[in-house]
């Protein structure tokens, strides 16, 4: 690990200033990803600004939305009564991620900001445009069984590893941030980026901007929800693919639908066309299969992840079936 300076912030403004004025400074909260990356030399911040003392842990309702503080722990959110009642999809997605030990450390803001698990990103001896712009994409012609089928570029085919974010994009959440220029809101779907020519940028946060909360608007998705995650063991593994599904069913007819996928793109992947294909239709397996076909349009596989094209529609169907039956 490199030497670094450590400061503890007690006020958001101080934390923001400390990071805004120093390009080599980073916020640290749970540290479950950043510390690993520092140990491996993948990230080498010279200053860590500890934000754990900031008052950003509350979960409370305001303005027809549930506001979840950026420092709320993943385990706290998953167990929170209001979350479980109003947004059970989020609780399901959180509990599908990592392990209890990690969920007890990881925060909501940190979860959103975790870096890809692409092995080329993690190995400083191998090329990676995300880690070292211009060095090339190791995965493009390399081992790419975990990689993207949507929204990639020839610079980067990595996927975002968060489960929680897949649920949040499906639930139309909004990210609240504070920065040197004040506060702003970012729709969750616009928070993460596609790689394009600048895969080193995972999100649309500006330098020094701090996530303070995530708002989830009230909605009808309190019952028919499911988070389907397929991984290589029963627990504690990143998704090969995952699907967040939420349905509002009235008398067998789908009134509203939300669908998003994880493990397919550089960002949590909202499937709006498939949602449209569900609305107004009966909640049947045949309709779910049709929506899955729509969802997979435009998907393209690489050498080792061709299975995602077969598995993808299957798990969309499985997620919708399970959600409908919930």
């Amino acid at each position, binding site marked *: *690990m490199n030497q670094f300076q450590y400061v503890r912030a007690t006020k958001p403004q101080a934390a923001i200033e400390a990071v805004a004025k120093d390009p080599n400074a980073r916020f640290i909260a749970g540290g479950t990803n950043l510390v690993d990356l520092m140990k491996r030399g993948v990230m080498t911040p010279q200053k860590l600004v500890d934000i754990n003392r900031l008052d950003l842990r509350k979960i409370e309702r305001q303005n027809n939305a549930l506001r979840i503080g950026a420092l709320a722990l993943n385990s706290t959110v998953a167990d929170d009564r209001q979350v479980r009642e109003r947004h059970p999809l989020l609780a399901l997605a959180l509990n599908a991620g990592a392990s209890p030990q990690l969920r007890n450390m990881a925060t909501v803001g940190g979860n959103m900001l975790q870096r890809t698990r692409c092995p080329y990103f993690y190995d400083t001896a191998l090329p990676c445009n995300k880690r070292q712009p211009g060095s090339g994409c190791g995965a493009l012609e390399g081992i790419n069984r975990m990689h993207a089928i949507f929204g990639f570029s020839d610079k980067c085919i990595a996927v975002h590893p968060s489960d929680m974010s897949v649920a949040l994009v499906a639930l139309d959440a909004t990210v609240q941030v504070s920065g040197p220029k004040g506060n702003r809101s970012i729709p969750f779907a616009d928070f993460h980026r596609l790689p394009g020519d600048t895969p080193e940028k995972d999100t649309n946060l500006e330098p020094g901007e701090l996530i303070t909360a995530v708002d989830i608007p009230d909605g009808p998705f309190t019952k028919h929800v499911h988070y389907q995650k397929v991984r290589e063991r029963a627990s504690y593994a990143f998704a090969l693919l995952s699907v967040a599904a939420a349905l509002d069913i009235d008398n067998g007819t789908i009134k509203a639908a939300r669908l998003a996928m994880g493990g397919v793109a550089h960002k949590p992947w909202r499937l709006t066309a498939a949602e449209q294909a569900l609305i107004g239709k009966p909640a049947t397996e045949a309709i779910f299969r049709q929506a899955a076909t729509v969802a997979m349009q435009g998907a393209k596989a690489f050498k080792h992840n061709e299975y995602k094209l077969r*598995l993808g529609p299957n798990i969309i169907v*499985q997620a919708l079936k399970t959600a409908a039956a919930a």
Partner: protein
Amino acid sequence: MNAPEKKIGAPMNRVDGRQKVTGAAKYAAEYDLPNMAYAVLVGSTIAKGRLSSIDTKAAERAPGVLAVITHLNAPKAPGAKPAGKDPSQPQTVGSALQVFLDDNIRFNDQPIAVVVADTLERARFAARLVKAQYAPEKHQTNLEANKANAFLPTQAKKNPKSGAADYQRGQVDAYKTGALKLEAEYVIPTEVHHPMELQAITAHWEAPDRLTLYDKTQGTMATRRDFARQWGLPEANVKVIATYVGGAFGNALHSWPHESAAIIAAKVVNRPVKLMLTREQMFTMVGYRPYTWQKIGMSATADGKITAITHESIGQTSTYEEFVEATLGQTKMMYESPNLTTRYRLAALDVGSPIWMRGPGEATGAFALESAMDEMAFLLNLDPLEFRLRNYTNQDPEKNRPWSSKFLKECYQAGAERVGWNKRQLKPGALRDGEWLIGYGMGVGTFGAHRGSSKASAQLLPNGTVLLQSAVTDIGPGTGTAMTQIAADTLGLAPGRIRFEWGNSDFAQAPTQGGSAIVNTVGPAVQEACLALKDKLRELAAGGNSAFASAKKEDVVLADTHLTLTGNPTARAPYTDLVKQAGGTAVTVESKPSGEGQKVSMYSFSVHFAEVRVHELTGEVRVSKLISCADAGTIINEKTAGNQMKGGAVGGIGMALMEHAIIDDRFGRYVTKDLADYHVPVHADSPAVEVFFVNKPDPYVNQLGTKGIGEIATIGVAPAIANAVFNATGKRVRELPITPDKLV
């Protein structure tokens, strides 16, 4: 006095359980010596070529750094030889890659420098400042691309009777002319042992010619021999301590580069040096189960008699050592087949050397053989258990001699009942529970019941405790507990009065822990040392009390404070008197196998039955039942032996469903680098494994009747699961692991 309850067989708790769960047990990286320094390795980033330059200046200037050692400045150990120096005579496993001897790079992450500092953090920081330039050469890391270059191992060339040599009975490749035949290829990828405890060593030169190592090793004496030889020292000057080993599974059966590096570092800085590998380094330089390609041809009669088997394999090895294992052993002796051909080959790649991984080659081979048995049973429209029974061997068809003991049919029956084999349908895909397809499969395992020579020492302490010592290690199976039970029964003492000490090369000579042979080998030595101690105590007591002089050994009783005789309570010899006598009470005995074993074939046997559930849409596999049945002779401790079986079965789940170390061949470098990429089973992946032991003594292996458990616990598990997946889905996966992508 009533004889204490018999301890052999009892499910006694581990003698070191408390130390382990309270953290009192010290592992190799937990010894804190005065003036300790810390070492971190720098690995190459190419797989083959030469180091053209190495810049250590920045690292040397970094705070706390004591030394940066490379091939340019490392002291040369007098016995060190460059790896693969004479390519016409490749070394067999047994000699480590000795670091910093030259500028050759033989595999990716090969140590090219070691940085020593006053703290671990400073060493780690400085290690990143070492900058190397290379003259790379074209490397080969893919076995499939190198099958054409596969060769017969040197040991087989030199000795046609070697287990690695081509084997033949009946006609060559007779399956090809069989009426009903099958031909299939199987692949096991590279798997890495990954015990919980990382490889670690603390090296301490106590004097310029005296070396003490606190080391993660399965053999204190083998490690002592290797490094005494490397440094030109008498073995008595090297001491190796490995009291606690946090799992190993074979990965500490060899001396490795990091051990050489720590010893050199300790020499250079003249301080004790601690070096612990990272999880990432555990992939590259301390062995693995080699990627192995196999092909099986089999023919059978319509009534289910195998007429011929041909089994070929090509396993990966390094360019500087020939690693050989018994991949084809089970095929030669498990089923009655009048025609049988095996061909074992190696392909040398630019990778670190492999090493035996639990069940070793036999587990690799059993995946192919037991899958093929299932495939043939399917072709015959026969129950796979019935097919095995029709080809059961009542004597060893390889050596044409009787088995020392074989109770595999009892295992078949017990396992089939427990798993609910009668529910199994011949037609795949016939059983389901909602979206989950259900299937049943079985796999058989066998491993030689090996016994070697061993010593053990025993002595009486004044408080009446008997102290036993052996250089053997206990890597987790509960060796210390089993030996305590054997001693307790032999001496008629409560286990609390036995103190068994192990894991120190200064103790009585014992073999390396591996190959399921330790209870077979060290158990008799402990028993005989106890008997010799009894006799010695009787002799010592005879000086003061003539009743002891004429007494028989079996009448000698070790009471709480004194020696006495059965039926003669007036005969008393206080321990305090006995231990004061000239020469003390200590005895050391050596126990060797009798020649009897030459007339028979000695094997442990196992069968594993699996029930799996496969999700029809997601391709996820869940093992819902796993029953492991073993004919392993006498069971010394039902609890620790059961624990070994369960651990081995869980290892088999990993092998079947998830373990897979992947190299990007363009760079010759692993892309699986931690336990997030390289999956081993978590609790949720394993059902409550049910274990059944026949528990009948073997009359030949040793006087205890044991045969060994460690390997048969794993051998046969992976094919049982793969066969169950086929039964559930109709999909035959011949390349492990069976991940969801292969089933959708």
